[in-house]
């Protein structure tokens, strides 16, 4: 475990150094993503100015939702930057260069890149929560824990979608669209949805766990609810792990030659 964390830290540091080689590009992506999230918040501020309560949700709930969702996605795509591109790695045969190395294949693939704009999401989440919510110390720690759990759910979902490439071939487009759907559904108030859509959000597209649980927990902390989210996140991670390695058995080498630094 400790060796894996050291490996993760080493890669993260190297990825950040590589990204910072294009310093202006890195900062412009980071700032533009913060602005992007800020514009969404502006929309919700306008909406809640007109309708102050929507099925029990007030403007602070949407700020919490955006802070946790943006923070979680930012952490996932910042640390595991290859996760959104896993389908392409599989279909182009680029897994070859990871298979011969002594590290865990899935972990190695996931950490081998970072997304500069994701750090903007993470920064936005932290700033929005601290500046607009003024949390107590317990809430701040709870928020950080929730960001980690949501990051696990996002990463696991990306791995599941990417692993489809083992069976479907080029499934990059499908994976991108389903991830887009997850992000879209995760950033709207849960009480808005009803009927079959609500069922979908707590099953196939787990947006309900990203939007409903954190808001409820930061409103009124309950251990069973928190435990439920932890179990779900671990379950998703386990399922993603299982599906990836089951798919890996079907992987055919692309005879790809390449050097893998680090």
């Amino acid at each position: 475990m400790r060796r894996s964390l050291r490996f993760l830290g080493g890669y993260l540091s190297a990825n950040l150094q590589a990204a910072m080689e294009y310093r202006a590009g890195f900062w412009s992506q980071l700032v533009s993503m913060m602005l992007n999230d800020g514009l969404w918040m502006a929309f919700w501020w306008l909406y809640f100015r007109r309708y102050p309560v929507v099925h029990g949700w007030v403007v602070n709930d949407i700020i919490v939702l955006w802070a946790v969702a943006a923070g979680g996605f930012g952490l996932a795509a910042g640390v595991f930057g290859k996760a959104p591109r896993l389908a392409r790695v599989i279909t182009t045969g680029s897994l070859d260069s990871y298979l011969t190395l002594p590290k865990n294949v899935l972990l190695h693939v996931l950490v081998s890149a970072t997304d500069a704009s994701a750090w903007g999401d993470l920064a936005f989440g932290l700033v929005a929560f601290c500046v607009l919510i003024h949390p107590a110390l317990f809430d701040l720690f709870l928020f950080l824990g929730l960001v980690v759990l949501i990051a696990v759910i996002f990463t696991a979902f990306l791995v599941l979608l990417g692993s489809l490439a083992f069976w479907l071939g080029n499934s990059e487009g499908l994976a991108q669209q389903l991830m887009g759907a997850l992000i879209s559904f995760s950033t709207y108030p849960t009480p808005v949805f009803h009927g079959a859509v609500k069922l979908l959000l707590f099953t196939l597209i787990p947006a309900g766990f990203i939007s409903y649980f954190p808001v409820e927990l930061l409103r009124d902390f309950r251990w069973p609810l928190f435990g439920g989210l932890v179990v779900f996140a671990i379950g998703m991670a386990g399922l993603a792990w299982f599906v990836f390695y089951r798919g890996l058995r079907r992987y055919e080498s692309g005879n790809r030659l390449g050097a893998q630094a680090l």
Partner: protein
Amino acid sequence: MTSGSAITHKARRGLGRLRNAGKYWAVFRMSVASSFAYLAEIAFRALVLVALMVIFVQLWQTTYSAQSGALLGDFTLRDIIWYLALVETLATSVPPLNRRIDGEVRSGDLAYLLGRPCGYVLYQYAQYLGERVVRLAMAALVASTLALLFVGPPPLSFWGLLAASLVFFLSISIDFGALFAIGLMAFWTEETESFALIYSRLVLVLGGVLVPLELFPEPLGSIARALPFAALLYGPARTVIKFDLGQFGALLLQQGLTLLVLGLLVAGVYHLAVRRVNINGG
């Protein structure tokens, strides 16, 4: 009296222009054909549009049920869902033009295109139009089918339908100008994706993708309506759903002015950019 040689000269010029237009028409047709080759990818993209439409329908159903009257501004639930279907059709059909131009600048492919017997800007415009038309048709099909299922037939008028093609064409032309200029920024900046992201989000909020601009609080609503972003999505969609001759005229003026300013900007940026191109033989 006009001399015979003058007539021949005029006829030749006319023929030359026709031939020029023919070249770009061929590029447009090629782009349409190649977009059809990736129809599955375009269909996948429609998945997000389905998600967005479901979200908007449920959000606005909840909003309407939470208030006392059947109108928000002068929009009924049916109006607003059709309005959102139209703006989403426009907003989700934008091809990654800025990324293509950025790539051509960085890879040097731009130099090859500059040597071709056609204008680079018009070549890109024709290619963009071809791609956009196919994406627009697919998005319109998906969004209108869903809107029809959720709230019934659209509140269309004859004049609204007639105006649609013109205001939509001007809207996608404005988009071209903005994205092309952003792509050319690759001559000066390390990456252009962040500019494109901010542009798309400004269009999203100030262009009325999430909510019609008259539902914004004042004076923000008036400011947003006066900005060029309104000419991209809000104006065209509102013209189709709630046609009003006065507003239509104002929209045409706004779109024309935006296009003129963008055209000058693109010409200026392109002129500066081309001077930075170095072509080495070998």
